[in-house]
């Protein structure tokens, strides 16, 4: 009985197992049939059927993945790429999927999708998996190369891909070209040439091969081999247009000489003359750009402009070149500042009905230092004065001075290298130069003091224009009777320059955190910021010796008016008083601005109201420094006229426009105002006081600083004359310490008199320096 039950139980279990197995096999079979049906429909292009059959995917893994592959093809073919990507991504995320990948094409689609979504690391990982899984897939290897190069060091990636190419997948030549292009992108000419090989590939990819090889040869500076390649390439094509275009552009870009001795600009001209035959618009545009640049540098400006016009008409503009760029300041971006100064243009200034004694004062050539005085050109009877001038980044300025010394007209003109530019001068009623009362050396005070005024963004060229117009008598007197220089402020940024002055022991920047802190200091200058957002970083930056603390450690009393604001700990708070003997305090009663008087408003009547509020800050600054100078309570006062920076940037385009401005305009009025206020400040100083006027940098274009900064000094022991060369601004701190006889190790770049060359401090009252 028991045996019978056992047998029956065993039989039942066997039947059950068989049933389960049959059911599973059935499911597999059904899954297989479903997948087969989906794929057959997809293969036959019956997309709707394929999609209908695969609305629910089979459960068994293999059939499920196969059906998904085919469904995806149907989705892609009916324009539903996103649904395909979503399906595949979902499957890949399922643990049961294992290391399965969709077919190579779909894997590439997934890779591209991840890449386009910014998931580059995931895309690169999938491309790598895919390229290993499908070693014959060229697109996946190309994608892998592209993506890994974004994430990894190029050497390792390219070497890995190059090794796999040696196994010779079917698309190896194409991928090889692609990888070679990437080598070239890394400026690895040797790697490019190694991968390309000496033998040209199949005709359909031969142009690409030759162009890459040509670029690599040019990069290596091998013009003979480049020329040989171009000749060979021309022979293959039966048309030299494309190879010769590459040749000319590559010679120009790499600054190589043609082994056959032909001028490069002539080769470029041949290329652009062929025009449409080239059938490569990008290359043609490049040839135009190179030709215009080459002709401009050669001084053949009219030809350059003609080719520019032709190219611009064809391409609706010509690369980064603009017509005005050939004539105006932005040209230096395309030609380089050095080249810009080498390009000259002619200017004719025509004065109707000239009068005896008329003289045209013309600004110096841009190759001259910016503090160079204007040249005087007597106006001949025919009324025309002609000069040649380099382009530069500033316009040429002219001033008509009449025989009686009055100024009757002035303006600016941009020389044109293509044609002579004529200025028709309209004579205005003469304006007499501003006169200062005769200078009577003020009595000596109760000790040596120094007042330093830093004109933020002040530029010599504004000073010289105002001087030529006879409007800046104070600055003129400082230059003529005092010591002057063109300081070098490099890099020309306010925070760096001010720091070098207030922290003379510091050199350059301290590194990453120092740079961030410095940028915060630049941002601080914006009125709506008003404080350095990175001020706390000063706590972990090296503390450099401070000008005010060093001088204030002894008997001197100093005040910092650098507008560094409370949070710019490093340079010191505006109004901070240090000394004597290290005592610290804060100046009371400093105002940030004050309303302009009726006279001041009249002088600045053309100013934009938005700009006038900045002038109000300048007015308050000078009120404060005048008061302090008059009180004689400080030995060293350093003021930065901070608002001038924004005013200069904002007013620069109008101030440099080609027109007869007659000295009207905010910036010119502002320099007259500064001159008057500096003159009034000087009246408050005693005979043994030092006055220094400088700028932290100059201005090159409306949004670019120039490293040439202003420097003027007058006072006891100051040797009059111009300092040769371009002393670095960072030596101003040492110069002041020397003036007060305080020994320091700070860098010395500038001296108030040449005798200091041997060291030591100047004599308290040098005879020649007194104004």
């Amino acid at each position, binding site marked *: 009985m028991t045996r019978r039950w056992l047998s029956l139980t065993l039989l039942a279990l066997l039947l059950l197992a068989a049933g389960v197995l049959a059911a599973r096999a059935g499911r597999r079979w059904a899954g297989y049939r479903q997948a087969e049906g989906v794929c057959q429909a997809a293969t036959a292009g019956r997309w709707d059927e394929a999609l209908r059959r695969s609305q629910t995917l089979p459960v068994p893994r293999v059939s499920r993945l196969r059906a998904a592959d085919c469904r995806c093809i149907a989705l892609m073919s009916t324009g539903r790429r996103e649904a395909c990507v979503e399906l595949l991504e979902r499957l890949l995320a399922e643990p049961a999927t294992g290391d399965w990948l969709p077919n190579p094409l779909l894997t590439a689609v997934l890779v591209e999708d991840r890449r386009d979504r*910014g998931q580059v690391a995931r895309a690169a990982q999938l491309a790598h998996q895919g390229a290993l899984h499908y070693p014959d897939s060229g697109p996946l290897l190309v994608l892998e190369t592209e993506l890994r190069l974004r994430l990894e060091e190029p050497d390792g990636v390219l070497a890995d891909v190059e090794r796999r190419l040696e196994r010779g997948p079917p698309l190896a030549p194409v991928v090889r070209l692609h990888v070679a292009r990437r080598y070239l992108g890394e400026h690895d000419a040797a790697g490019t040439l190694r991968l390309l090989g000496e033998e040209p590939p199949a005709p359909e990819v031969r142009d690409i091969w030759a162009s890459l090889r040509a670029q690599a040869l040019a990069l290596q500076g091998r013009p003979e081999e480049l020329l040989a390649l171009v000749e060979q390439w021309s022979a293959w094509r039966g048309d030299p247009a494309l190879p010769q275009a590459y040749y000319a552009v590559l010679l120009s870009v790499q600054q190589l000489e043609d082994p056959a001795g032909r001028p490069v600009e002539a080769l470029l001209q041949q290329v652009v003359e062929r025009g449409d035959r080239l059938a490569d618009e990008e290359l043609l545009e490049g040839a135009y750009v190179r030709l215009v640049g080459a002709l401009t540098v050669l001084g053949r400006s009219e030809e350059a402009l003609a080719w520019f016009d032709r190219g611009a008409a064809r391409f609706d503009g010509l690369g980064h070149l603009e017509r005005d760029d050939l004539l105006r300041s932005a040209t230096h971006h395309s030609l380089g500042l050095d080249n810009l100064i080498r390009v000259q243009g002619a200017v004719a200034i025509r004065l109707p009905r000239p009068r005896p004694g008329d003289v045209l004062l013309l600004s110096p050539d841009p190759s001259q230092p910016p503090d160079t005085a204007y040249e005087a050109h007597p106006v001949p009877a025919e009324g025309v004065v002609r000069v040649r001038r380099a382009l530069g980044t500033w316009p040429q300025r002219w001033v008509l001075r009449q025989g009686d010394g009055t100024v009757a007209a002035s303006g600016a003109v941009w020389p044109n290298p293509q044609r002579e530019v004529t200025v028709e001068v309209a004579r205005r009623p003469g304006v007499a130069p501003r006169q200062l009362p005769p200078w009577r050396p003020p009595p000596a005070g109760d000790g040596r003091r120094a007042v330093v005024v830093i004109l933020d963004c002040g530029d010599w060229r504004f000073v010289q224009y105002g001087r030529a117009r006879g409007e800046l008598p104070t600055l003129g007197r400082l230059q003529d009777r005092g010591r002057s220089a063109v300081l070098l402020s490099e890099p020309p940024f306010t925070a760096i320059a001010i720091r070098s002055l207030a922290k003379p022991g510091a050199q350059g*920047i*301290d590194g990453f955190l120092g740079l961030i802190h410095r940028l915060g200091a*630049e941002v601080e200058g914006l009125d709506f910021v008003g404080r350095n957002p990175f001020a706390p970083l000063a706590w972990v*930056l090296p503390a450099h010796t401070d000008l005010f603390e060093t001088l204030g450690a002894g008997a001197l009393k100093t005040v910092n008016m650098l507008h560094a604001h409370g949070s710019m700990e490093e340079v010191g708070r505006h109004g901070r008083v240090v000394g004597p003997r290290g005592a610290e305090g804060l100046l009371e009663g400093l105002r940030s601005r004050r309303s302009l008087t009726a006279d001041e408003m009249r002088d600045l009547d053309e100013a934009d109201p938005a700009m006038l509020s900045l002038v109000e800050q300048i007015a308050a600054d000078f009120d404060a420094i005048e008061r302090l100078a008059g009180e004689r309570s400080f030995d060293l006062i350093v003021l930065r006229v901070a608002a001038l920076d924004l005013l200069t940037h904002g007013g620069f385009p109008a101030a440099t426009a080609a027109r007869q401005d007659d000295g009207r305009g905010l910036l010119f009025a502002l320099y007259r105002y500064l001159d008057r206020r500096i003159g009034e400040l000087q009246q408050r100083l005693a005979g043994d006081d030092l006055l220094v006027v400088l700028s932290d940098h100059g201005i090159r274009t409306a949004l670019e600083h120039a490293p040439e900064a202003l420097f003027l000094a007058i006072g006891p022991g100051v040797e009059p004359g111009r300092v040769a060369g371009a002393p670095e601004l960072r030596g101003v701190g040492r110069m002041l310490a020397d003036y007060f006889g305080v020994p320091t190790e700070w860098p010395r770049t500038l001296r108030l008199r040449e005798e200091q060359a041997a060291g030591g401090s100047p004599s308290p009252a040098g005879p020649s320096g007194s104004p």
Partner: protein
Amino acid sequence: MRQAHVLLLLLAAVAAGGCARDAFSRLPQGTLWYGDAAAADAFLAQLQSLAGTPAAHAAGELRERLDGCSRFLAFCPRGGSCRLQDAVTCEPADATATAAAAALGDAAWIFAGEPGGRRVYVRATPDEAAGWRFEAAVDRGAVGAVDAVLPAAEPPGRPTLAAHERLLHLHVRPDRKPDLEALAPDVGWVEQLYLLHHPLLSGHGLEGSWELATYLPAAGEAMAPTVVALAVREPEKARQAMEDFLARAMERWPLRRSDWSLEGAAGACLSNLNVLPQLAPCYVLTSDALVIGWNATALERALAAASGAATAAAGSELSVDLASLPEADLRLQRAYGHPRPVPGSYPWSSLRVEGRREGGRYALQATLAGPPTAPAP
């Protein structure tokens, strides 16, 4: 007092962590530092290794005060005029010390203060590798500029910017929008000059979270490539706002705009804005962010190798790769022609801060990882 406040503000800012323990609420108003002197000394010794800096100087002063202490308290009442360095007492036993001991719990030291007008509490605990863990709580306080980085309860959106060679990364969904108008009270001319009230800056079309990344500068670069990504909710609206911003800026300033794109994402560059080192800002609009770079190179660095997009962020966070700063220092010093480049020396290898708003406070957890280990010979 001021020095000490700033130092501890720095510590608090660096630590930036958050634990809203009731015991903290019972601490007296003012600036307080309390805890185990040996642990505090270890932290100060690390700070002191930043030789020649104000932080090192202040740390040295504090260490002298702590010498011989087992437990210490430094307390400056609110409104008083005192330096924390001068207020150090050893083995304190007064009511303030009792309250501080209750707040200390198992931490090594605590700090409470009001930097920037907000009450901040910090609990610090050393780890075994000379690093530190901080928990902090910051009161919400009045709206100010710092709100741009104070985190909401919700995490920010998906990160966009690449992680490769990233020195600094901030990814945050601000709890509150900073009050730009408060920054520019004189709206008339400031608005004319800087367009502060442009819809773009008011968040038009933006999703709310934003990201900042700064990368290791390449040789010769005078600026560490820096990029900001503003997550967008309505890309087209954000693009229009950005273009309108540029158009209005170009009316005011002589800027030169050129079309620019990166991997299919369209944008623009301003090429003549060299007022800061190598500044030539570009933007591109990706599918989910308006990405603005210091220059085109910075954008390429941040987007070409974007790898952070794989996972959504768990919360707002800040990370600083301190171990890479010496190399950045060297490269920048060389770029600026420093005659004798010297890399900075930092006592920690990384800083990581995570946080979120919890009720009326911001709860922050921070880790300062110990010094980088020297490579094996």
